[in-house]
């Protein structure tokens, strides 16, 4: 399997910033997605707690996509945020048709518990999230809004 990383940094159009990252659909690579999430969250002026929350939420979003991974491929992530403090992330699983070897083995209690925990985490940490599959392409997204610090 050929691994490929692609990134495109902060393109600003009409006050909307975009960062694109494409990583192999491999559990070993999720740390890159978390690092990018933390950097983007800081650029979007989220507070420290929200940066940590986004890092975890993005990890859960990617784990959800990996659970659909019957083929090797890429996870394409699009981060988009505006000056109003809304940050959206869309992740798309882009298969390349080769058999998967990502070996996703969540836990002794099986994937059902991990999936339930993942949903609880996303429900708690982000303002909105969801997933769908259109034409066999799996997609997941989340949205967070910047919290103003109370004094």
């Amino acid at each position, binding site marked *: 399997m050929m691994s490929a990383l692609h990134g495109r940094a902060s393109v600003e159009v009409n006050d909307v910033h975009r960062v694109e990252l494409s990583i192999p659909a491999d559990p070993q690579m999720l740390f890159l997605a978390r690092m990018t999430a933390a950097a983007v969250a800081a650029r979007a002026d989220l507070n420290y707690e929200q940066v940590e929350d986004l890092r975890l939420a993005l990890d859960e979003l990617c784990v959800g996509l990996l659970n659909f991974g019957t083929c090797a491929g890429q996870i394409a992530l699009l981060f988009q945020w505006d000056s109003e403090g809304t940050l959206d992330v869309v992740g798309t699983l882009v298969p390349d048709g080769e058999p998967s070897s990502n070996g996703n083995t*969540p836990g002794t209690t099986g994937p059902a518990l991990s999936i339930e925990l993942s949903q609880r985490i996303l429900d708690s940490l982000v303002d909105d999230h969801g997933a769908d599959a259109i034409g066999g392409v799996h997609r997941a997204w989340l949205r967070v809004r910047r919290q103003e610090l109370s004094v």
Partner: protein
Amino acid sequence: MANDASFEVTDSEQPGVSVLDVRGEIDVATSPELQEILVELIGRGPELLIVNLSDVSFIDSTGLGVLVGAVRDVRAGGGELHLVVTEPHIMKLLELTGLDEVFSVVSNTSDAVRP
């Protein structure tokens, strides 16, 4: 290129007590290794298993799933599992998933061995 270079697990034993010190990030990449070690430790039938997460900087749902499986297996064998948690964001994660009600959580290893 992998992130699990910083993931380390070391275990130590006293009579009836096993202590597992975990360091680094517990995610979908490293959870299988943690699970394997826990299964092996639980197989020895400890009365008390302490999983020290003080040096864990990140844990996700797959890591939590492994720990829930471990606590169930330990209790099925008549033992108990305690978690040592010092990082506020990990404590927050346990609370928001409701797992703070499932685990016995303490803030240091000494408290975990105290009856």
